[in-house]
């Protein structure tokens, strides 16, 4: 069967424009690939992170009663709203890593690990449960501590001598944030083994699962609150209740936010690709105006002709879809694997839902058609007479409007330049597409670099505001004078000061101390400090200093529900709740949620006088290596003096825990911006190619009246440059709020505070340079093509 002539024409046109067709397929495929990758990964990860977390049957709450008794367990079991309850201890100790440094290590102590049904772990290697005298190590700990499989690990509890225990088994605990991210190893052991390390054999807390409340935070809080009050009424002391976000992995929100942001960018990339396709189709159609007229003259209706072009675009879209979606989904699967590994959970199934596949295909096929509908409609609705007379000029251009006059003045006495500048406005629709394409690419580029600048500023500010180099957390409060005396002989300390802090919660009317933390104690912790420990330099976001008032940092303010300045916030510690007037909110970056209260009130909570559980020091040297060495020397000196150190934090550790990983996102954003810049340049190149082809005859006339080759080249380059520079205001107007929006997302995730609006002059300068270089390179090829033709060839061009 032979193809009808009109389809032969379509085939011939596509073949003749195979370079542009290839560009269109590539552009669309890149956009679709990005969307398929991120959407596929999102679909897999959001399902699998939830599945992994819920498979552990996480506790709805952990009730810290100090010492679990059979009576307490019986009371809890009698509550019909409680589906299950198990006793446990979660203790903070240290494990020795391969480099000889003590690292924070959590010990999950469970009476019978084999029968445990709340917060379960999955055995991966070796023996589980570990035999008496041995521990199981969460798999991430292997790399974090540098422990060999089947090896031993040195563990110590504060105040007790370290002991080397065999690592009998490796387990996977998908309910926890990864070791590398939290700078914490996780171990699982029996009460007897825990006692061997010096811990108490009596378990401290009860893990409970509230019936039918897997995702119901309010119901969980209500049930657990009521249970705790009944326990208190029976004489049980409730030290603290941990209620993590219901049914959510610690990093689920962060992961969804980041993937959501990438999805937005991927969709933007696809929209730009579709726009680029529309620009290219528009260019092709501009060259076909006469052919359309001829087809109409011999009986082709508008619908028949439009269908022809729509089918052509559908073929291009189908090819791009066929290439991009399988590759994108495969990449998405790989990307999901990388993220899952980063967040320490396993992908059970790489399947994506059929609806997603169907939607991706539909978007791949329909989006380009939607974008080209307008250019096709416009080109095919020309009457035969208009099309045959088409010179690429609109009546608006033929009349000298203010824009044309301005452009004429800009060119001075150079009429060829004036012509070039006016040519920019010849095809208004195409100009609009080009400006949108380049403007959007520029906006993303500027937004990404603005975000990076805002992030760097924020880190620098954080470092400047954090007026110490090393923080030492002690296992028990100790007289600060003893610490001073112990460290007096340590060289390299410029200043040492107390930095006592105590875990707290925002107070409730029922006096219960409910925190939003996970079993690892992180993600939602709140610290109470005396305001004498406030940094010297404060940046108030609202309010200020007030006698007797409390000052919170922005993380603490968010945790407390963003109360108004002057309102009362209740602080609870160990069952004691005290109200404070909120005096001010300060900016503190890379610092946990903290409430600063007057020293007297603080002492009232802690009962400590002259004793501290933490100290901070300033190093003489600002070299990171020297600071790390000082941290080690300090720890050694304190330990030698019989002072139990729980943790030593340096800025390098903080940066490793929080800083570097967000930077990855910004690098990815910049990579996307570079892709966008490339797409924009392709668009401009295509547009310039069309523009030159349309005006070949005009160039012939110009050369006939004496225009030189270089003059023509300058004419075309000026035109490209003008389009590129016209897109700059769009890029700025869109890029600045876009950058701010990304800063809000990333800043909220990292600091609980939006990154401030930062305008990177460097970003704008780089983008202008890219615009200039890309517009020149995009225009150079068509310009050279134009001057290679002889005058006879140009005048004969149809």
């Amino acid at each position, binding site marked *: 069967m*032979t193809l*009808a*002539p*009109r389809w*032969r*024409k379509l085939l*011939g*046109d596509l*073949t*003749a424009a195979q370079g542009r067709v290839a560009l269109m397929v590539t552009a669309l495929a890149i956009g679709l690939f990005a969307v398929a990758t991120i959407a596929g990964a999102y679909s897999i990860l959001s399902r699998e992170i939830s599945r992994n977390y819920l498979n552990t049957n996480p506790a709805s709450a952990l009730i810290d009663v100090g010492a679990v008794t059979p009576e307490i367990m019986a009371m809890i079991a009698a509550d019909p709203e409680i589906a299950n309850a198990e006793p446990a201890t979660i203790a903070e100790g240290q494990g020795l890593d391969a480099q000889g440094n003590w690292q924070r290590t959590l010990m999950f102590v469970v009476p019978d690990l084999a029968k445990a049904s709340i917060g379960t772990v999955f055995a991966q290697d070796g023996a589980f449960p570990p035999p008496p005298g041995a521990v199981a190590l969460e798999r991430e700990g292997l790399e974090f501590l540098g422990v060999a499989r089947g090896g031993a690990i040195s563990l110590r509890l504060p105040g007790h001598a370290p002991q080397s225990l065999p690592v009998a088994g490796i387990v996977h605990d998908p309910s926890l944030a990864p070791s590398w991210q939290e700078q914490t190893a996780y171990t699982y052991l029996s009460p007897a083994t825990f006692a061997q390390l010096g811990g108490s054999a009596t378990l401290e807390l009860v893990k409970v699962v509230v019936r039918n409340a897997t995702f119901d935070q309010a119901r969980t809080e209500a049930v657990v609150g009521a249970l705790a009050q009944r326990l208190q009424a029976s004489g049980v002391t409730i030290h603290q209740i941990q209620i993590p976000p219901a049914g959510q992995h610690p990093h689920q929100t962060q992961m969804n936010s980041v993937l959501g942001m990438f999805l937005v960018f991927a969709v933007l990339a696809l929209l730009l690709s579709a726009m680029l396709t529309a620009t290219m189709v528009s260019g092709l159609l501009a060259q076909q105006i*006469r*052919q359309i007229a*001829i*087809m*109409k*003259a*011999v*009986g*082709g*209706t*508008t*619908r*028949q002709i439009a269908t022809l072009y729509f089918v052509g675009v559908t073929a291009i879209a189908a090819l791009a879809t066929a290439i991009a979606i399988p590759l994108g989904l495969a990449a998405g699967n790989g990307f999901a694997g990388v993220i899952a590994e980063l967040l320490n959970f396993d992908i059970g199934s790489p399947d994506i839902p059929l609806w997603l596949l169907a939607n991706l295909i539909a978007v791949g096929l329909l989006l380009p058609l939607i974008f080209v509908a307008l250019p096709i409609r416009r080109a095919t609705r020309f*009457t*035969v*007479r208009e099309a*045959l007379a088409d010179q690429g000029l609109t*009546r608006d251009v*033929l*009349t000298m409007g203010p824009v044309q006059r301005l452009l004429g003045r800009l060119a001075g006495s150079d009429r060829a330049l004036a012509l070039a500048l006016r040519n920019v406005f010849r095809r208004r629709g195409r100009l609009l597409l080009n400006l949108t394409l380049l403007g959007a690419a520029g906006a993303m580029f500027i937004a990404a670099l603005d975000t990076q600048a805002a992030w760097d500023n924020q880190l620098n500010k954080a470092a400047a505001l954090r007026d110490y180099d090393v923080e030492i957390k002690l296992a028990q409060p100790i007289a600060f004078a003893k610490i001073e005396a112990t460290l007096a002989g340590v060289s390299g300390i410029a200043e040492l000061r107390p930095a006592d802090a105590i875990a707290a919660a925002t107070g409730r009317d029922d006096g219960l101390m409910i925190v939003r933390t996970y079993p690892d104690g992180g993600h939602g912790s709140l610290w109470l400090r005396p305001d004498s420990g406030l940094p010297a330099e404060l940046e108030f976001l609202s309010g200020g200093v007030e006698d007797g008032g409390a000052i919170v940092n922005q993380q603490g303010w968010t945790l407390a529900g963003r109360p108004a300045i002057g309102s009362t916030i209740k602080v609870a510690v160990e069952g004691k709740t005290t109200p404070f007037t909120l005096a001010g909110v300060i900016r503190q970056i890379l610092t946990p949620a903290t409430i600063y209260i007057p020293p007297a009130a603080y002492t009232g909570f802690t009962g400590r006088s002259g004793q501290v559980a933490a100290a901070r020091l300033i190093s003489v040297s600002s070299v990171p290596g020297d600071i790390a060495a000082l941290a080690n020397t300090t720890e050694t000196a304190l330990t030698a003096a019989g002072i139990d150190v729980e943790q030593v934090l340096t800025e390098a550790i903080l940066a490793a825990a929080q800083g570097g990983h967000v930077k990855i996102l910004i690098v990815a954003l910049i990579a996307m911006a570079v892709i966008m810049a490339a797409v924009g340049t392709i668009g401009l190149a295509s547009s310039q190619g069309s523009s030159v082809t349309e005006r070949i005859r005009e160039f012939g006339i110009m050369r006939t009246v004496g225009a030189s080759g270089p003059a023509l080249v300058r004419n075309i380059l000026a035109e490209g440059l003008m389009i590129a520079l016209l897109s700059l205001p769009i890029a700025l107007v869109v890029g600045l709020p876009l950058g701010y929006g990304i800063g809000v997302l990333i800043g909220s995730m990292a600091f609980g505070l939006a990154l401030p609006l930062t305008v990177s002059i460097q970003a704008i300068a780089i983008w202008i340079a890219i615009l200039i270089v890309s517009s020149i390179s995009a225009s150079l090829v068509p310009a050279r093509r134009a001057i290679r033709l002889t005058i006879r060839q140009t005048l004969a061009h*149809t």
Partner: protein
Amino acid sequence: MVTASASPFRPAAVVPTAIIDLSGVGKTYRTPAGDFAALTDINLTLPGGQFLAVVGKSGSGKSTLVNLLTGIDSVTTGTVRFGDTQLNGKSEEQLTAWRGRHVGVVFQFFQLLPTLTVIENVMLPMDFCRVGKPAERRPKALALLDQLGIAEQADKLPVDLSGGQQQRAAIARALANDPQLLVADEPTGNLDSRTTAEVMDLFKSLTRNGRTVVMVTHERDLSAYFTRTIELEDGRIVADNRVGAQS
């Protein structure tokens, strides 16, 4: 080689007494400088078999008249009838469909579609207007090209043909749907004298089969071919000469 004397083409399907009738036709264009009357009070009746030349200076309204005859443009005043069909008030789409079936158009610059072969160019109107069965279109197009003496060029692209050959291909395309009216806008303007003579013989032969051919020309020395010549000046018919009997 064109074999005009053999009357190679099928007669038009219907040959009414008056193929086309323009009555009181005027065409005015709106321009930034004000309204411009391209044609004024044109009354013209063309019976079947007539070979009409439209002459006049540049800007006299020749192309506008041709555009009105072919339905490419519409009148501002007056009526245009084609057989029993009144063209006034028809939409662009209706005019396109009508033109495809009833009018063949030949342009000065041939205007063959460059990515189609010669025979595909000829088959294109049949395809658009769904004339004949698909399997019959190629043989018919080939026969037309054969009659025009360029059958051996059928599978070449237009760019590979000489100007004369391209114009013959364009004429074949205009005849593809057996139109009753053939309108040619300076079809010999780019041809040498020998090819011009061949094309004119061809047009002449078409009129013998009852078709009407309207041709815009500047070339006075072609007058011997025409059965009628109208001269336009400032949008009006200033002369209407019937110069010979129809054969």
